[in-house]
């Protein structure tokens, strides 16, 4: 599996993704500069975390018009996988590949700490490698992570099984205390209806090696590699 990591001005998790996917998981990885209008020989696109364009206007609002995004949209239309992490998730909602929006955290604070997530779906191409209803621990690091969508969209996400990760207590209960940012229905990660585009606020790329705090991020990338091999 060949991963392509899009680098926007202000991306800052691009090297974490690069290092972890290459050295911890042994995948082929390349950087894709946001000015590129096309890319070749890439199986999975990653839109990494950071503060693209300084989060000016709204997080992801300007990055979505970067020249590379036309090629990213084409990649999505082909059914090829795309993962948006943190700022990448925000960009995916702004460009319309995923529904809803990521708003300012309810507390108005930038939150940087590990959280517990409950795996909601086992048959998605991004979560096959996890056990459903099990919880995992991944770090979050964001100021604008409060997922919001209209009731109509939420019903659609629920009915189609497109909510993949929810913030929870360590035991997997969906509590307000386990919800760090006020996301509606504790939503931390979703996918599109075709099942090839996924976005999440937590950082799986920061948990690929026990020496940096755990390996709960591994099954996500392994699932994608297997599902789209």
């Amino acid at each position, binding site marked *: 599996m060949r991963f392509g990591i899009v680098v926007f001005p202000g991306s800052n998790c691009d090297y974490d993704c690069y290092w972890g996917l290459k050295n911890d998981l042994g995948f082929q990885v390349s950087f894709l500069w946001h000015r590129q209008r096309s890319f070749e020989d890439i199986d999975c696109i990653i839109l990494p975390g950071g503060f693209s364009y300084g989060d000016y206007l709204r997080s992801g609002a300007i990055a979505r018009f970067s020249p590379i995004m036309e090629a990213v949209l084409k990649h999505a239309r082909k059914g090829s996988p795309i993962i948006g992490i943190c700022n990448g998730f925000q960009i995916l909602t702004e460009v319309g590949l995923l529904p809803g*929006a990521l708003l300012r*955290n*309810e507390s108005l604070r930038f939150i940087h700490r590990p959280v517990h997530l409950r795996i909601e779906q086992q048959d998605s191409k991004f979560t096959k490698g996890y056990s459903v209803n099990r919880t995992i621990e991944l770090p979050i690091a964001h100021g604008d992570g409060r997922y919001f969508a209209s009731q109509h969209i939420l019903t659609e996400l629920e009915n189609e099984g497109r909510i993949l990760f929810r913030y929870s207590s360590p035991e997997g209960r969906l509590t307000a205390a386990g919800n760090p940012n006020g996301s509606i229905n504790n939503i931390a990660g979703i996918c599109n209806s075709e099942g090839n585009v996924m976005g999440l606020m937590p950082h799986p790329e920061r948990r690929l090696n026990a020496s940096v705090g755990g390996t709960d991020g591994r099954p996500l990338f392994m699932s994608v590699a297997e599902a789209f091999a």
Partner: protein
Amino acid sequence: MLVKIVITPKPEILDPQGKAVAGALKDLGYDEVSDVKVGKYIILKLSPSPGLKLEERVDEMCRRLLANINVESYTVEILEG
């Protein structure tokens, strides 16, 4: 020509910033304040091109980039001169 655009969170969207400001105003004794919404104020300076409808162009700018219409409303004021 100047165009002034005001963008605010839609009423049904929780606006924690507005809530915090409302709380602070109450602490200062302004009990008459019942709600606050904090948004953005954008000023565009432009030269309208003949043949292009200014209102439509600005509305398109708002929908495509300046506002996220899923969660924000906007109003546009066009000032001559």
